[in-house]
């Protein structure tokens, strides 16, 4: 129940996220009498009930935090049934579709529900999400998850292939999201689903050929402001970098004692990350020693992650005015 509203303490039936480490987060449905195995050992569900979200729990071999679920954390920990959208794209979709509490949205396909959760968070409590999935088991699994997460009242999951069978909605939605192999086939049906006063549409496609056909179809069906974009998250690793300073004095002219002192100085500096106050003072120390001593130049550095997503998909947005 913890997705649809913010709770203070953990209760039975809540989905909580176990934060074991930065890249290790597991969803857990708190169930009476159950035990969950983590890499830090067993966690009894009962032991977290009544605890505040954010609490640190001592497991046999380490700490675990119980976090309140958010769509963003869910995206990082959900069971993958398909390729999923990530928060960079999801954020853009929700923003560009003009969603707000009360919006009615049609989504095809549901996939693993990564986007659905962000949509639901935004349109709650008076909006509604009509979501379609052509894969039967996935549709059922999504339905179950939404129920589990307290979203039942705001979402309708339909097992249907929207390509071909259409949304079968009659002018009731504010926004449509398409993540389909042939989105252009669904534009007519999407248009029919959209309110007479108009609304916004988004199509997500990995290949440029899909985008081309979709844009052509959107244009033919009088959608306007057709804009295609790509957005990629670039993460920074924050490192305490250390670059050796070379000496321009022949070592013959330098006393060994001097050298050792300066080296000891550089060893006394914090070996890893440190607060800015410490950083500044260590930097000051360097200045005192001069810029070209035989020590090292230490600085906090924001290093772009070496590997980053190069492509997720093209996002095409379009406006339908009153029709």
């Amino acid at each position: 129940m913890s997705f649809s509203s913010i709770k203070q303490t953990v209760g039975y039936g809540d989905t909580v996220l176990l934060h074991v480490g930065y890249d290790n987060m597991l969803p857990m449905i708190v169930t009476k009498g159950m035990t969950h195995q983590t890499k830090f050992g067993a966690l009894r569900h009962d032991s977290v009930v009544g605890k505040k979200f954010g609490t640190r729990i001592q497991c046999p071999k380490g700490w675990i935090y119980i976090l309140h679920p958010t769509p963003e954390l869910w995206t990082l920990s959900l069971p993958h049934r398909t390729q999923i959208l990530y928060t960079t794209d999801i954020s853009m979709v929700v923003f560009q579709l003009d969603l707000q509490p009360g919006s009615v949205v049609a989504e095809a396909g549901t996939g693993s529900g990564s986007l659905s959760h962000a949509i639901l968070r935004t349109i709650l409590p008076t909006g509604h999400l009509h979501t379609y999935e052509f894969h039967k088991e996935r549709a059922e699994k999504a339905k179950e998850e939404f129920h589990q997460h307290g979203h039942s009242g705001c979402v309708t999951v339909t097992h249907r292939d929207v390509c071909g069978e259409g949304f079968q909605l009659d002018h009731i939605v504010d926004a449509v999201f398409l993540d389909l192999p042939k989105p252009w086939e669904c534009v007519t049906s999407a248009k029919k689903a959209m309110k007479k006063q108009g609304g916004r549409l988004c199509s997500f496609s990995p290949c440029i050929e899909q985008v081309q056909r979709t844009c052509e179809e959107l244009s033919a069906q009088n959608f306007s402001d057709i804009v295609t974009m790509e957005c990629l998250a670039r993460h920074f690793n924050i490192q305490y970098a250390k670059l050796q300073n070379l000496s321009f004095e022949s070592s013959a002219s330098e006393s060994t004692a001097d050298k050792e002192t300066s080296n000891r100085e550089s060893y006394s500096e914090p070996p890893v990350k440190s607060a800015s106050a410490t950083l500044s003072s260590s930097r000051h120390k360097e200045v005192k020693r001069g810029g070209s001593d035989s020590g090292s130049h230490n600085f906090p550095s924001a290093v772009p992650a070496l590997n980053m997503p190069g492509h997720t998909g093209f996002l095409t947005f379009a406006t339908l005015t009153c029709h």
Partner: protein
Amino acid sequence: MEPQLINEGDQVVFHREGWSRVFQIRKKRQVYLDKTKLDVDSLIGQPYGSTFEVDRGKLVKIEKDASQALSICESSSSPGTDNRNLLDLDSNQRMSKEDIMKMKDEGITGQKIIEELIENSETFKKKTEFSQAKYLKKKTKKHIPVFTVMRPTPRLILEIFSKDPSKICYLRADSLSQLLSYSNVMHGSKVALVETCQGLVLSCLLQRCGDAGKIVQLIPNSTNAICRQVMDYLGFGKFKENVYTFPLDELSSLNDASCSSNARTEVSQTKATEPCNVRPAAAPVEGEQNVTEGSEPDAQTEETADPDSNSSPYVEEQDRNEAAEDDNIKAEEPRGEEDVVMDDTKAERDAKTGDKRSLGPNREAQRQRREARQQEAGVIIKEKQFDSLVIACKYNPMPILLKMLEFMRPSSSVVVYCQYLEPLVECYTSVKENHAGLQLKLSETWFREYQILPQRTHPKINMSGTGGFLLTFITSQRSTDSKKL
């Protein structure tokens, strides 16, 4: 479900591809658009989503958009095969700028002007099909001003600032949208906010709160004005009860364990009141004239008239610099247009100035209401139960972040946006050191648009090089222990 109609008093967006302006519809009001004075009376009663062409100061509703004109022209000529024998010379066009201006003054339509331009071009017929299309698109945009009238949304409001992103700390759609996601603000959220983005972030968060939730906007101090322009654009009068204001320089008094409500009131009363811009858009406060031109254009950083309240020469200097910058920007724009956008400013300022010199009974009541609201905000802050903290401002974020973390509950969502990377590196390091956050991420977004056209598909030739940087994390239990920070 029927088309919604434009009413008097509505804030409307004039929109064309990648460009938006917002106006409030009032009878007998004229707005400036692209150096042309326009009468907007005719919009009242029209459905939203209608498209209009500007024709000699009048808005003429058209059924199809400008692409129609484009396609007519396109088919009227047979393209050349390549550009090999074309020289780029001014003499290729037999019509002069003066000719064009004269035609415009005579009231000749943009479409007719374009046809004349083609007729008088030495090279148009020899150009390739693609070059012709490119030429037509450029000329259409220049000579046929066509706008669609839309209801304001954060997306369209953001476009208004695309010309001058410094006003909103260089927030771009990708960074603003992620800020909103990672803040996890939803119906009913309790949010602590520090922003200097003209109220844009406040408005977006407020929209996501719906009719529930509470947003406490922390401002530098009670004497500094805050700008919440965007609140008006989005017509947020009705939700204003959700928004509280609290001066950061009074947080320390809240933090005292003994902090009684009396003591707090006392402190507040020694300060000037917060000149709050938030009020129902359609209900002018006393003293405001229905200004259409000639008002003060500077709404960005309003200085109070009281010299005592500006005790810091540094801040004053900064404000002046910004005011000067703003003036520079405005100098490029037609004055009239700015006036309409900023039309509340002079009245506000007049009111403020009066505020200090002699408080009438109305003013006194307002002042008291504000005091009461600030006290309410203080109570919310002291509960330390904020679900979200959002910082997107022109101030150094680290001290603000560390201070505000004292008031967050564990497992709450924190987003710090900054146009510079370096201050967020410091925030990151500090949060990490203090074990104050989980899922700590520092990122920027690479964002590019595409031109999708038959045989001419490619990424857009120009893109934005930066949309700022985001630090996001989830507070952990430790962060509630204020002594560690």
